[in-house]
């Protein structure tokens, strides 16, 4: 395939092919080329061919089923046009709708409507100036109570929570030990802060311990002075692997070497743990032991934004020193109210058991989907209990074929390829939701079964039969 890519590029350079993408102006042709680097090469020749599997326009809310607008391409994905038809009732296996709060049920949204009528939609100010509404204070108190920590602060955008607050917490002369597969927001925040960054292998405690030992023994790179702070950055659930962090071991290491821990629970808050409190509850660990708890409201709560929680001194410091608090607009009131009602629902404060039912339904759906997929013979990554299920496709050709075939069977999936995963490990990522019913999951499993045989995706050699063997009598003797 590389040969074909190079041939195509050559043809384009020679002028045979009309160049569809951005190009420098005629006068600038002698300058250093702007559009020729490797990522663009990949993007031009590979991504564009399968581009129709991403950025699909949706015309309903992203609940368990949604409507997709149909679009076709006449010139192999350089341009698209909408045909005007919509594909209705496509089962949604890609939205981060873990507890099913992305719904438009009128009863549940009464308080949100009230709030919009009272406060409007825009805040028109930053938190520090005139944007600190009483709903924000209510939300922060509620988040702190939900997580079991002293205090919390909410921000308007989940990505910005990471990238704007890490520079406020660490600076030059500090050390950041971040996991190999951390999210871009964490990496961006770490780079912006100016601290030294060292990367340890994914979930590998020996690698982390070795790095901690080396860091404490040798100190800062040239002066060998002691580090001002050592911050370990990990995520609760890694979104591309579905693996859970090894929290008890990291806490033991942190106490031994006196480092700080920054836990990004973007996917795990609301989705793991017996009552949905996140990885701290899942492992039975006191949330006060983690120094900085960060999470987003986008995934399980069906809203937008992020929070940082921890000790009162930490959050008070962030209120005045965070870039986001000083410069970014405050969260919009209806969004805040949606988060408040979602948290109240999960905690059970509003008097119903709906929240508990959803958390239990999510756990059941996750376990059902994972065990059936493993029985069928697919290769799945990740922990038994994580609602993020990556199914490995391995070959880049199958990525496009898989996504198109699933859409034809009215199931919407997210497939991930090169820049987000290694190029030989393309995968399809399923996000289980509490709003999925057994019938929907069965339909998905059946389509996967047929597709798996058609495209040959059942790579696993550990297949166990899902029909228990029939014996006339038991293997072992029973004393009667």
């Amino acid at each position, binding site marked *: 395939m590389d040969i074909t890519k190079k041939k195509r590029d050559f043809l384009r350079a020679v002028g045979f092919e009309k160049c569809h993408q951005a190009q420098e102006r005629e006068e600038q042709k002698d300058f250093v080329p702007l559009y020729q680097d490797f990522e663009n090469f990949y993007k031009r020749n590979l991504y564009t061919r399968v581009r129709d599997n991403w950025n699909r326009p949706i015309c309903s809310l992203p609940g368990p089923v949604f409507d997709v607008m149909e679009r076709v391409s006449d010139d192999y994905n350089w341009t698209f046009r909408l045909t005007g038809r919509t594909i209705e009732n496509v089962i949604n296996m890609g939205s981060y709708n873990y507890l099913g709060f992305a719904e438009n049920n009128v009863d549940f949204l009464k308080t949100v409507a009230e709030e919009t009528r009272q406060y409007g939609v825009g805040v028109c100010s930053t938190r520090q100036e005139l944007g600190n509404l009483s709903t924000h204070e209510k939300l922060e108190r509620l988040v702190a109570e939900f997580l079991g920590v002293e205090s919390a602060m909410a921000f308007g955008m989940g990505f910005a929570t990471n990238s704007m607050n890490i520079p406020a917490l660490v600076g030059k002369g500090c050390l950041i030990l971040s996991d190999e597969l951390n999210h871009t927001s964490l990496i961006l925040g770490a780079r912006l802060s100016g601290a030294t960054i060292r990367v340890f292998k994914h979930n590998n405690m020996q690698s982390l311990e070795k790095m901690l030992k080396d860091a404490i023994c040798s100190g800062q790179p040239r002066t060998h002075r002691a580090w001002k702070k050592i911050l370990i950055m990990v995520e609760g659930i890694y979104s591309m692997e579905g693996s859970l962090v090894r929290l008890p071991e990291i806490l033991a290491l942190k106490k031994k070497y006196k480092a700080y821990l920054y836990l990004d629970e973007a996917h795990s808050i609301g989705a793991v743990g017996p009552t949905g409190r996140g990885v701290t509850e899942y492992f039975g660990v006191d949330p006060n032991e983690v120094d900085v708890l960060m999470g987003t409201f986008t995934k399980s709560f069906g809203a937008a934004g992020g929070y940082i929680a921890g000790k009162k001194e930490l959050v008070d410091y962030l209120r005045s020193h965070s870039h986001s608090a000083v410069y970014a607009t405050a969260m919009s009131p209806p969004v805040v109210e949606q988060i408040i009602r979602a948290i109240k629902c999960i905690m059970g404060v509003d008097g119903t058991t709906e929240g508990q039912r959803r958390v239990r339904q999510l756990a059941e759906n996750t376990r059902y989907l994972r065990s059936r997929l493993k029985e069928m013979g697919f290769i799945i990554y990740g922990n038994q209990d994580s609602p993020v299920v990556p199914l490995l496709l391995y070959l880049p*050709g199958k990525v496009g074929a898989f996504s198109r075939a699933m859409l034809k069977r009215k199931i919407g999936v997210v497939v991930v390829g090169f820049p987000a995963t290694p190029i030989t490990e393309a995968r399809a990522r399923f996000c289980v939701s509490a709003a999925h019913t057994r019938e929907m999951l069965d339909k998905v499993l059946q389509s996967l079964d047929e597709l798996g045989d058609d495209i*040959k995706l059942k790579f696993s050699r550990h297949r166990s039969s899902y029909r228990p063997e029939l014996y006339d009598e038991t293997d072992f003797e029973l004393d009667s």
Partner: protein
Amino acid sequence: MALADAWKQLSWFYYQYVLVTALYMLEPWERTIFNSLLITVAAMAVYTGYVFMPQHIMAILHYFEVVQ
């Protein structure tokens, strides 16, 4: 009837080949170029085999003194 089944089976095999070699993503004219190159190389290999195999086999048998 059997011909239709055989044709379906063959087209499924072609589909697998196209997926595994990532030809699935290429436009039809690129596929024809790649396929013709592959067939040319394969034909050359078969032709070479046809011309030189008897000589090689005789030489081996001669080495092991099975035939003089």
